[in-house]
């Protein structure tokens, strides 16, 4: 089946980001296709390149980057939510006149329409949040 995932919360603060990752991994292991993982609300904070979590614990952003690479996942960060929270890619930073960008590898910034499309194109949409 084709599955889409929505993640509403940031890394570490809520278990949502972890649950979504474990679910996504299990779905891929079962041979399902992940159409898109969409990060909304504080979920956009999962895409920061600048996190330095303790070495003896999971690195949530890195886990997604690696999973994305292995399975060519479409990890989409909502532009509106990202702008609000200061999550930028190189283009956005340039466009908005900011002196830095902070998006991690494997994520891309796009519009809210991508979430609706994720619901339309997939057989199932699963939301992880607070």
């Amino acid at each position, binding site marked *: 089946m084709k599955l889409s995932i*929505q993640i*509403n919360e940031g890394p570490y603060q809520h278990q949502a980001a972890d649950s979504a990752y474990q679910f996504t991994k299990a779905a891929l292991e079962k041979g399902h296709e992940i159409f898109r993982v969409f990060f*909304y*609300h504080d979920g956009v904070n999962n895409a920061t390149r600048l996190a330095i979590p303790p070495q003896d614990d999971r690195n949530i952003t890195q886990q997604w980057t690696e999973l994305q690479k292995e399975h060519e996942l479409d990890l989409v960060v909502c532009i*509106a*939510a990202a702008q609000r929270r200061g999550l930028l890619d190189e283009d956005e930073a340039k466009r908005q006149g900011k002196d830095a960008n902070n998006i991690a590898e494997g994520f891309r910034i796009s*519009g*809210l*329409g991508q*979430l*609706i*499309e994720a*619901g*339309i194109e997939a057989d199932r*949409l699963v*939301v992880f*949040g607070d």
Partner: protein
Amino acid sequence: MAKKFMFVNRKAPYGTVYALESLEVVLISAAFEQEVALVFMDDGVYQLTKGQQTDGIGMKNFSPTYSALGDYEIKDIYIEKESLEARGLTLDDLQHLVWEDEDEDWAEKDSIHLVSSKELAAVMADQEVVITF
């Protein structure tokens, strides 16, 4: 083929961002010509109260945006009766949301359907995609 999308709102406005950002999703969904239904239940019913004045808390009052839903063809808005009653509210306490039916000479119609839990259950069972915030 349009899918039946339901957006479920269960949280109060301003205390968290979900009410505002979920509204943004709903408005975007209008561009995709799907069959959209909105549900307000539990504290979500508070999102629609009249007379919200946010100057004192320094936050933007986004409640006027709900009245634009009709213009975006979002006209199936369900409010759970039990949630309203538990909070001592009636429909009079909420914004009167309407849409204009172009098939009936732009007649103004109510967008809000006050439903019991049982009726809401039937509506929810009929949906294909449920997005919660």
